[in-house]
C-alpha cells in the first residue's frame, strides 16, 4: 500500500510530540515531512530559562536530535519557512521554493511574543523571548552592555529578568498592572515574590505604561520612556508582555481563525485534511500559552491522524510554576476566588510562606502557594479530578498524605533536598539523577520518569517527591497523571472503572472475552492488565468465570513467594495465629527434611520457611497437609492473616474472646481473593495488643461488644484505621466485616488497598451501605459467603497436579 503524505509546519514541542504519538500508533502509515523555521532540531522550549540563567546548556535541552528524524524516516527542512499553503493542490511552499505535497497537514506554528506597538520597537536591542536566537542575543548582550529592561512581569518576563541578572546585567522589570504575575498570583503572593526577587537584585516599576523606546547615539536602543514622563536607561529591552498565536499562514490559506487557528475536539481545523496543535491552535475559545495542554492535544491529534478515530480533547486545566532557582511559587485554577467561592489562607510572612486555597461548592477551584509548593502537584490533581474535598477540608491546607513515611530519610520537600539525596530508597535513585533524566530525555510525566530512572516504580513511597521534582524542573509543563480515568495500562484506553462495569454489565466470563468486547490493543495484554482482569472476572462472577493461572503473577500461580535467588517461601496457615505442638513438630520435620535454610516468624505472626526449591514445593505441602496444615496465602492478593491478642481466654484485662473471634474471621475468609492483600486483627480490649489500628479490618473488643475499624495500613504510609461502627455479637462482627470486605472486593481497583479505596469513595459512603443499609449489608455478606464456599486448599490441589513445579531435562 502506498503511504499517505503528512506534512508538518513548525518543528516545535507540540508538533514533534504529535509525531511521536503517531509513530507509536501507526509507524507505517505516513511519509512525514517537517518544515521548521528555526535551524535547530526540536528542543525543550520551557528549559530556555535555565539556559539563560546558565544552569543548563543548549545541548541538554534538545528533545529530538537529528538521528530521531532520520531513524523515523522523517524529512526535516530546518531553517525553511513555509510561506504558502495551497489547499487546492494540497501542497505547501517554503520561502526558498521547496514544495511538499500532503494528504494530511499538521499546523504547529506556535506563537510569537507580543511586541508593544510603541515607537522604537524595531530598534536593535529590542527582542522578544521565545527561542534559542533570543536567548543567545541576551547572553551576548549581557557580556557587553549594562542596562536591561524587561517589559512584562509575567512568568516569562521574570524568568528572563532573573537570567539577565545572573548574567551580570542591571535589570529593571516594567509592568503595567499593580502587581507582578497578576494572571497567576494574587496580590499577597505577588508581594512576597517581588520582595524575594528584589533581594536577588531585580528592580521593579509597577503600574507603568511604556510610551516609547528611545535610540542611543549608536543607533541601538538607549532608554525606555513612560507615559508619566519618567525614563530609564536601556541597552537591551525584552518584550515579555504576552504572546500571540502564529496564524498568518493559516489565515492566508483562508482557514478559520480567531485568536488562534480554530480547531474542534479532534484538533481538526475547518479544512478536514488540516489539523493544528499547540500554541497556534484555539480550542473552545482558548489558545493556550503553556506547554502542558499540548500533551493531551498531541495524543488526540495523533489518534485521529492514525485513523483510529477515538479520543477527544476537552480542554486543559493549567498550572503555573516559576522556574527561578530558590523561589517557590505555584498557582492553578481560579486562584482569585469570587462570588460563591470560599478561601482558606495560611499566611506566615516572617517564614516566607503564603498559601491560599479557593473552594467552590465541595471542590477545590484554585490554589496559590508561595514559599512552600510541595503540595502543588496534589492540589493540581484535586483540581483536575474535580474531586470532592468535603471530607478532607479540615486538613486540606496542611497538604497531602501522598508521600510515604519511609525510604527517603523523612524528607517531604523535594526542593529542600540536595542533588545527592536519595529520593527512591528501593532503587537507590538520587534527586540529581531524576533531574538529569528529566532534562536529557525530555520527560514530563511520572510514568516517563519511572521508566527511565526506576524512581517511584517499586513501593511508590516516594511518588509525591518525584512528582514535586518533575513539577519544579519543568514548571508549568508538568501534567499530573489522570488518576480518575487513567487507562489500566498501555494495552487499552479503558479505565479500571469501565473495565469492571463492562465485565459486570455484559457478563464477560474470560479474559479473551473482555479483550474482545473492549477492543484491547494487544493480543494477550501484559503483566499489568492480565492479573487485574483475572481478578475482576473471578470477583464479579464467582464459580462462573475462568480463573486463568497464566494471568496470575508467579506467587499466586505457584502458591508460594518467590525470593531473590528464585527459591520460594512457604507459610502454612495458623488460624488466628494459634498452633499446636503437633503442627509445630511437622513444620520442624519439614524444615529439616528439605534443608530449609531460614525459619522465621512473619510480620503477621506465622511461621515462614524460606529458601525452598520450586521442585520441592509439592512434597513440602504434601507433608504439611498430612498434619492438616493448609496454604497461608502469604503470597496472594488475598486474605493474609487475622492477628489476635490473647484476649479474655487468658488475659486479665481481656473483655472479649479475641482468639476465638480471630479464628472465626480467618475461617470465614479463607480463600478470599481481593484487589490487594487483606490483613485483619482482633484485640480483646482497647489496649489493642494485636495492633488492630493499622489493619484493613481491625476489631477491638470492649465490655459491651466490639468496635470495628476499617482501612488501616501499616506499610508505605502508615494509615490509622477509621472507626466504622460498634456491634454487639460475634455474628455481627462477621457480617459487618464481611460486608465491608465484599464491597471492597466488588468496587476497588486492582492493587488498591482498603485505605486507598476508602479514601477514594469516602468513609461516609462505606458506612451508608455497610452500617446504615441492613438489606445491602446482608446481600454483600451473602455474596461473600457464596464466593468463598467450597474453596479448596490450593496446596492440596497442587500436590495432585505438580506439572507447574517440575523441570524438564535436556541432557
Amino acid at each position, binding site marked *: 500500500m502506498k503511504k499517505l503524505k503528512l506534512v508538518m509546519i513548525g518543528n516545535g514541542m507540540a508538533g514533534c510530540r504529535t509525531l511521536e504519538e503517531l509513530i507509536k500508533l501507526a509507524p507505517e502509515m505516513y511519509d512525514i515531512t517537517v518544515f521548521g523555521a528555526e535551524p535547530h532540531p526540536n528542543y525543550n522550549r520551557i528549559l530556555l530559562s535555565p539556559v539563560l540563567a546558565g544552569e543548563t546548556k543548549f545541548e541538554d535541552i534538545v528533545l529530538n536530535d537529528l538521528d530521531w528524524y532520520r531513524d523515523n524516516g522523517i524529512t526535516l527542512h530546518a531553517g525553511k519557512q513555509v510561506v504558502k499553503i495551497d489547499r487546492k493542490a494540497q501542497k505547501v511552499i517554503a520561502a526558498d521554493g521547496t514544495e511538499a505535497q500532503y494528504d494530511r497537514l499538521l499546523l504547529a506554528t506556535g506563537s510569537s511574543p507580543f511586541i508593544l506597538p510603541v515607537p522604537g520597537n524595531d530598534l536593535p536591542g529590542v527582542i522578544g523571548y521565545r527561542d534559542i536566537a533570543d536567548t543567545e542575543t541576551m547572553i551576548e548582550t549581557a557580556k557587553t552592555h549594562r542596562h536591561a529592561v524587561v517589559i512584562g512581569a509575567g512568568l516569562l518576563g521574570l524568568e528572563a529578568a532573573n537570567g539577565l541578572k545572573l548574567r551580570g546585567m542591571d535589570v529593571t522589570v516594567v509592568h503595567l498592572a499593580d502587581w507582578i504575575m497578576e494572571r497567576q498570583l494574587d496580590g499577597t503572593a505577588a508581594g512576597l515574590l517581588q520582595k524575594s526577587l528584589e533581594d536577588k537584585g531585580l528592580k521593579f516599576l509597577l503600574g507603568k505604561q511604556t510610551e516609547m523606546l528611545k535610540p542611543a547615539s549608536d543607533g541601538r536602543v538607549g532608554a525606555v520612556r513612560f507615559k508619566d514622563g519618567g525614563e530609564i536607561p536601556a541597552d537591551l529591552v525584552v518584550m515579555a508582555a504576552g504572546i500571540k498565536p502564529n496564524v498568518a499562514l493559516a489565515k492566508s490559506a483562508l482557514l478559520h481563525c480567531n485568536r488562534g487557528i480554530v480547531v474542534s475536539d479532534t484538533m481538526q481545523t475547518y479544512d478536514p485534511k488540516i489539523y493544528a496543535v499547540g500554541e497556534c491552535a484555539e480550542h473552545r475559545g482558548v489558545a493556550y500559552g503553556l506547554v502542558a495542554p499540548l500533551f493531551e492535544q498531541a495524543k488526540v491529534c495523533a489518534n485521529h491522524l492514525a485513523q483510529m478515530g477515538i479520543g477527544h480533547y476537552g480542554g486543559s486545566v493549567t498550572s503555573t510554576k516559576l522556574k527561578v532557582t530558590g523561589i517557590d511559587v505555584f498557582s492553578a485554577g481560579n486562584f482569585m476566588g469570587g462570588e460563591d467561592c470560599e478561601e482558606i489562607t495560611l499566611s506566615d510572612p516572617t517564614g516566607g510562606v503564603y498559601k491560599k486555597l479557593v473552594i467552590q461548592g465541595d471542590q477545590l477551584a484554585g490554589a496559590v502557594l508561595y514559599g512552600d509548593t510541595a503540595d502543588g502537584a496534589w492540589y493540581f490533581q484535586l483540581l483536575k479530578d474535580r474531586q470532592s474535598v468535603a471530607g478532607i477540608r479540615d486538613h486540606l491546607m496542611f497538604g497531602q498524605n501522598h508521600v510515604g513515611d519511609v525510604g527517603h530519610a523523612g524528607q517531604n520537600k523535594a526542593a529542600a533536598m540536595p542533588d545527592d539525596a536519595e529520593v527512591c530508597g528501593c532503587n537507590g535513585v538520587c534527586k540529581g539523577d531524576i533531574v538529569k533524566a528529566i532534562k536529557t530525555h525530555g520527560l514530563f510525566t511520572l510514568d516517563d520518569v519511572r521508566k527511565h530512572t526506576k524512581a517511584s516504580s517499586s513501593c511508590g513511597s516516594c511518588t509525591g517527591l518525584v512528582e514535586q521534582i518533575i513539577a519544579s524542573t519543568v514548571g508549568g509543563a508538568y501534567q499530573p497523571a489522570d488518576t480518575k480515568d487513567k487507562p489500566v495500562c498501555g494495552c487499552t484506553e479503558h479505565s479500571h472503572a469501565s473495565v469492571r462495569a463492562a465485565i459486570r454489565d455484559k457478563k464477560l466470563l474470560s479474559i479473551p472475552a473482555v479483550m474482545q468486547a473492549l477492543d484491547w490493543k494487544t*493480543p494477550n495484554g501484559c503483566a499489568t492488565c492480565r492479573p487485574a482482569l483475572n481478578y475482576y472476572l473471578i470477583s464479579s462472577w464467582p464459580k462462573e468465570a475462568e480463573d486463568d*493461572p497464566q494471568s496470575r503473577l508467579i506467587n499466586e500461580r505457584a502458591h508460594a513467594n518467590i525470593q531473590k535467588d528464585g527459591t520460594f517461601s512457604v507459610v502454612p496457615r495458623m488460624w488466628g495465629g494459634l498452633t499446636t505442638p503437633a503442627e509445630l513438630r511437622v513444620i520442624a520435620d519439614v524444615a529439616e527434611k528439605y534443608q530449609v535454610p531460614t525459619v522465621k516468624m512473619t510480620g503477621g505472626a506465622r511461621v515462614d520457611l524460606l529458601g525452598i526449591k520450586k521442585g520441592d514445593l509439592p512434597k513440602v505441602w504434601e507433608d504439611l497437609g498430612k498434619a492438616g496444615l493448609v496454604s497461608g496465602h502469604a503470597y496472594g492478593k488475598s486474605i493474609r492473616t487475622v492477628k489476635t491478642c490473647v484476649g479474655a481466654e487468658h488475659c486479665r484485662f481481656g473483655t472479649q474472646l479475641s482468639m476465638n473471634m480471630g479464628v472465626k474471621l480467618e475461617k470465614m475468609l479463607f480463600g478470599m481473593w481481593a484487589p490487594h492483600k487483606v490483613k485483619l486483627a482482633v484485640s480483646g480490649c482497647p489496649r489493642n495488643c494485636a495492633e488492630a489500628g493499622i489493619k484493613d479490618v481491625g476489631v477491638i473488643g470492649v465490655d459491651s461488644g466490639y468496635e470495628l475499624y476499617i482501612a488501616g495500613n501499616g506499610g508505605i504510609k502508615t494509615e490509622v484505621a477509621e472507626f466504622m461502627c460498634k456491634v454487639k455479637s460475634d455474628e455481627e462482627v462477621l457480617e459487618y466485616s464481611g460486608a465491608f470486605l465484599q464491597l471492597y472486593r466488588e468496587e476497588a481497583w486492582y492493587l488498591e488497598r482498603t485505605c486507598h479505596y476508602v479514601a477514594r469513595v469516602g468513609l461516609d459512603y462505606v458506612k451508608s451501605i455497610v452500617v446504615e443499609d441492613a438489606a445491602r449489608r446482608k446481600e454483600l455478606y451473602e455474596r461473600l459467603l457464596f464466593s468463598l464456599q467450597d474453596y479448596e486448599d490450593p496446596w492440596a490441589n497442587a500436590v495432585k497436579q505438580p506439572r507447574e513445579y517440575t523441570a524438564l531435562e535436556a541432557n
Partner: protein
Amino acid sequence: MADWKKLCTLEEIPRLGSRVVKSPKGDIAVFRTAEDEVFALHDKCPHKGGPLSQGLVAGKVVTCPMHSWKIQLESGEAVAPDVGCAHSFAVKLEGGAVWIAL
C-alpha cells in the same frame, strides 16, 4: 554444529506459559505463546538474574517476576528504555514435539 535435543510435547508447556529445562548450559526457560510459537532463553534476567521462566508471557514478551523488566522472547533483548540481553537458544517444533539446540 547445533546439538538438537528433544524436550517434550508442545502440550506439556502451558499456553502463555513456560517450563524450565535443566541443561548442561544451565537453566533454560522454554516459552509457548498464544499462537503456539516456542522460544527459549537462558533463565536469567539480564537485570538481576531473575528466573524469566516464572514471568508472565504476553505477545512475544515475558515480564520478569523480580523487577518487571520486559524481555523479548525472539531476541532476548530487554524492551527499552531498559538495556540488556538474555541468551537465546534455537528451538523447533516437529510433529508436536519441541526440540532445542544446545
